């Protein structure tokens, strides 16, 4: 199999896949919907947290190449539907060949071979279509506009496939084979047979020879002679055809896999490009993260992508409805407080999504975004009560947290949104403090959105406090915890 991937030429570490909760907590579905991109595929890219700096550099370089040669990129993408048609043909032929393989002999004297000839036709058509396909995309890949090392590797790999020695032989063989129209005319060469009718090789002339020979031996039984000769020749043809058909099919499937991989990888760049143009269309700054050596997480003008996606899908103005934030996370304990509906959740969600995007090698909606090389990201958002079984809400929260603690996250980021509101403040605060110490010992940063005054009033120098100001600025800035109360949100009760 071709050793080249457009994502990264190395195998990925599947241990570094994030928990799928991250996707729902951070509302990735909204983003996928706004971009009209398959949520599952998008999640797959985002949950892969294994990227190294080298990989990010590779991805951004390749993406840049595609963006600079947008026309060529789209040519490649548009050809996908053509590839899918060929794939359908290959699959149909594969099905037929498999049912043919179960037959030991042709079903009727010539009928079996006629069937196989028609299957042949299918596979060879598919193969030819693949060749034409390669002929079409090789010039695109080989276009001088492309400069990245990744594409260069891919292009070379593809040239190797197409110019390989087996490739030409097979191509000649198949074009010879399928250019002949009738079965008896399909073969040429020498036919050798012994008394047990073992025929080693079939050629067209000797099909006639065999038949003549039989007829001579059984002069008085001419019909039988013809039948016997037909059967002998037919059986050999059948076996020959079977193995040839399988060979062709294997070749077609090999091409299929290569192109499937190519299009799967290209999807990543489709996402990359549509994200970038989504930012540009909506006036959002873009950051490309190639460097994971930042000491701490910091950002300028970072926006919440899922909020942007929601605003855009509702046809509202992004500039008016989405506010960006700047912050530097210097400590391992970060608290976000502020008035209700002030933008706390939006803040931590924006951080979560940005980290996901950065680690996936996708553009981040920020003017600047510096990210350390985190091992993992965990989210702990309140869950819907209705989904609970007989367990209490608090038990569910504990069970969720247990899952995180059991993984002993090191050098990671944990985002907690109003944790443990299902128990009393005193108990919740004690629990949160213990958890923060635990995570701190493992060099893991925790950003906690909370209303617990008891917790907020105990913040010392080892922690940072951010406050969401709410209407009209909705900005989140580093200041002493918000401890005010008394906003009237219930005017309808008057």
């Amino acid at each position, binding site marked *: 199999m071709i050793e080249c991937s457009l994502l990264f030429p190395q195998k990925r570490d599947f241990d570094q896949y994030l928990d799928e909760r991250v996707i*729902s*907590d951070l*509302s990735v579905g*909204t983003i996928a919907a706004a971009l009209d991109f398959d949520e599952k595929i998008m999640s797959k890219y985002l949950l892969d947290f294994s990227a190294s700096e080298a990989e990010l550099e590779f991805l951004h370089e390749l993406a840049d190449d595609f963006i600079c040669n947008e026309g060529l990129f789209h040519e490649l993408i548009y050809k996908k539907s053509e590839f899918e048609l060929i794939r359908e043909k290959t699959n149909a032929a594969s099905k037929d060949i498999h049912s043919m393989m179960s037959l030991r002999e042709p079903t009727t004297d010539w009928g079996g071979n006629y069937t196989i000839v028609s299957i042949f036709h299918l596979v060879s058509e598919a193969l030819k279509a693949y060749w034409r396909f390669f002929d079409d995309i090789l010039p695109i890949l080989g276009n001088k506009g492309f400069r990245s090392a990744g594409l260069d590797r891919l292009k070379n790999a593809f040239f190797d496939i197409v110019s390989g020695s087996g490739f030409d032989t097979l191509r000649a063989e198949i074009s010879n084979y399928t250019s002949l129209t009738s079965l008896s005319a399909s073969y040429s060469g020498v036919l050798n047979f012994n008394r047990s009718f073992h025929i080693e090789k079939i050629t067209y002339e000797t099909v006639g020879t065999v038949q003549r020979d039989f007829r001579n031996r059984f002069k008085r039984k001419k019909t039988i002679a013809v039948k016997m000769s037909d059967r002998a020749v037919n059986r050999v043809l059948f076996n020959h055809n079977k193995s040839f058909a399988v060979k062709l099919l294997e070749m077609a499937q090999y091409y299929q896999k290569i192109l499937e991989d190519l299009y799967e990888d290209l999807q990543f760049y489709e996402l990359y490009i549509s994200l970038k143009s989504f930012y540009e269309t909506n006036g959002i700054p873009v950051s490309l993260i190639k460097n994971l050596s930042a000491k701490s997480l910091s950002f300028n003008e970072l926006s919440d992508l*899922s*909020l942007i996606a*929601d*605003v855009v899908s509702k046809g509202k103005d992004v500039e008016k*409805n989405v506010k960006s934030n700047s912050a530097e996370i210097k400590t391992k304990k970060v608290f976000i407080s502020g008035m*209700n*509906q*002030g933008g706390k*959740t939006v803040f931590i969600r924006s951080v979560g999504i940005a980290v996901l995007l950065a680690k996936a090698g996708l553009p981040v909606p920020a003017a600047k975004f510096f990210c350390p090389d985190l091992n993992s990201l965990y989210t702990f*958002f*309140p*869950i*819907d*009560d*209705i*989904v609970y*079984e*007989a*367990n*209490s*809400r*608090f*038990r569910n929260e*504990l069970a969720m*947290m*247990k899952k995180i*603690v*059991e993984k*002993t996250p*090191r050098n990671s980021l944990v985002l907690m*949104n*109003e944790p443990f*509101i*299902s*128990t*009393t*403040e005193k*108990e919740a605060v*004690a*629990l949160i403090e*213990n*958890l923060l*110490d*635990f995570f701190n*010992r*493992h*060099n893991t940063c925790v950003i906690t959105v909370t*209303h617990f*005054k008891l917790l907020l009033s105990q913040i010392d120098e080892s922690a940072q406090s951010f406050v969401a100001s709410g209407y009209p600025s909705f900005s989140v800035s580093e200041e002493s915890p918000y*401890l005010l*109360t*008394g906003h009237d*949100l*219930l005017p*309808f*009760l008057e």
Partner: protein
Amino acid sequence: MINLLNPFNTAKIRQSENTVKCLRLFELCDEAATHGFRSILPIVKKELSELTTDLPTLKFRSEFAAELYNNRDVCEIIREVYTEIGEYLKLSEAYYAIDSRKYAETALNIFLTEKLLKIEKLLSVEGKSEGIRMLQQTFSLSEDEEFKQFQIEVEKHTASIDRFKSVEINVSPDVGMRKKIEITDSPETGGIESQVHSYLERLGVKQTEETGAPWFTMYSEFELAVLEALASKYDISTEYSSKFRSKCEPMLYAVHKGLSFYLFMQSIYEHWEGAGLSVCATEYNDHGSNSFQGLYDSILLKESPEVIIPNDFDFSGERGFVLSGANSSGKTSFLRAVGTAFSLSGCGCLIPAKSACVSPVNAIYTHFPQGETVNFGFGRLKTEIDILQGFLKNDPNNSLFLFNEIFSSTNGDDAYIYTKRLIAYLIRNNAYFILISHHKTIPPRLFADGETSQLAFLTTNVIDTKYAVRRVSSPENYENDSIIEEYGLSAEQLKTGGQEE
């Protein structure tokens, strides 16, 4: 027209989807639905999500349900009636599904006659409830003139059909299922049925599986052609009987629909009973007296009967209750139990309790905590408040509000202010409510305010190792059990957990 579900044709109020979801009302049906009632689930779900405050309707429904539950002999009879009607309706549907068969129609008439007479006989039980009396009245047909006339017609046709036993079927030789069929009189042919069978056998047509139904329910084109030929030869007219049947069938459908609901619910009651739990009929009143003895949350049965703890609860005196207690002490279960009891009694069903006295409410509103990301651009609290505002758009008078962990997404002080205002509003507007708060300080602060004439406090604090909800004169303090330890998240466990950096 008989209507066992809404006998007096009173208006019903549809419960909100959120209430049905929070109370997990439809989950009650799961167990019963697996016992062959799947097809009537939509009827049941519709009935369960409609409330009425009409006392005669509620009494009618509840008495009938109670009679079925308390007197299993009667219940068995009703089940049999239901099956008989079902069998007829099934056949009748099959009959309408085919095009032309006068012979079949006559057989259907015979079937209907038999079923009606059988049902009338079955219903000759001594029934106490109005429902049974209504059924008896509907099915007292033997003295009915129309029915008598119908019987005469049917007998007439049956006699013609008897002649079918001595006919011969001749099929034109060039075969095919659409061939012309001629009928001739012939005394020794063994009847049509056997001729059709043997003819089909010769053609290699396999018979459909044995259904126990008369042979004319096999709908091959050949059979239909035979029936057609028979009908035209013997000139069978079924005009009168068709009229009677088309009058009778809507009634049978209505009874069948009504009984399907009662019997479905009966299987739910029996499921509760089988787990050793009590089931009771509600005593209705219209003066706001609500009390329950041995009330339990039947959803917990999904887990195990052992986790169910019945509670006594009396609404009289106050309209509002603030419930507090330790984690996992059964607060949500209690809330759900109350909601379910009001819901079920609001549609005339039996309820999971030992005894109950209910004054039907106009509506039930439930507010259980919402997850994140439900409502973009609005905080969790705003979403919560929007829901609340939605509730209060309607007149809260005589409605029941169940709030679980309300305002938990804001700080304790704000939550207290909001809760206080909400309570005052509900009391002012004559609503009933139970409110669970996780902010430990809220109940004592509400109590300290002193405006508690319509407000009572409940706790789930443990007495005698049992979690039961009880009334307290002032909010009790409570400590949570160390369930944190169970999940390995106590201070000690976290200190030793994981490897130190």
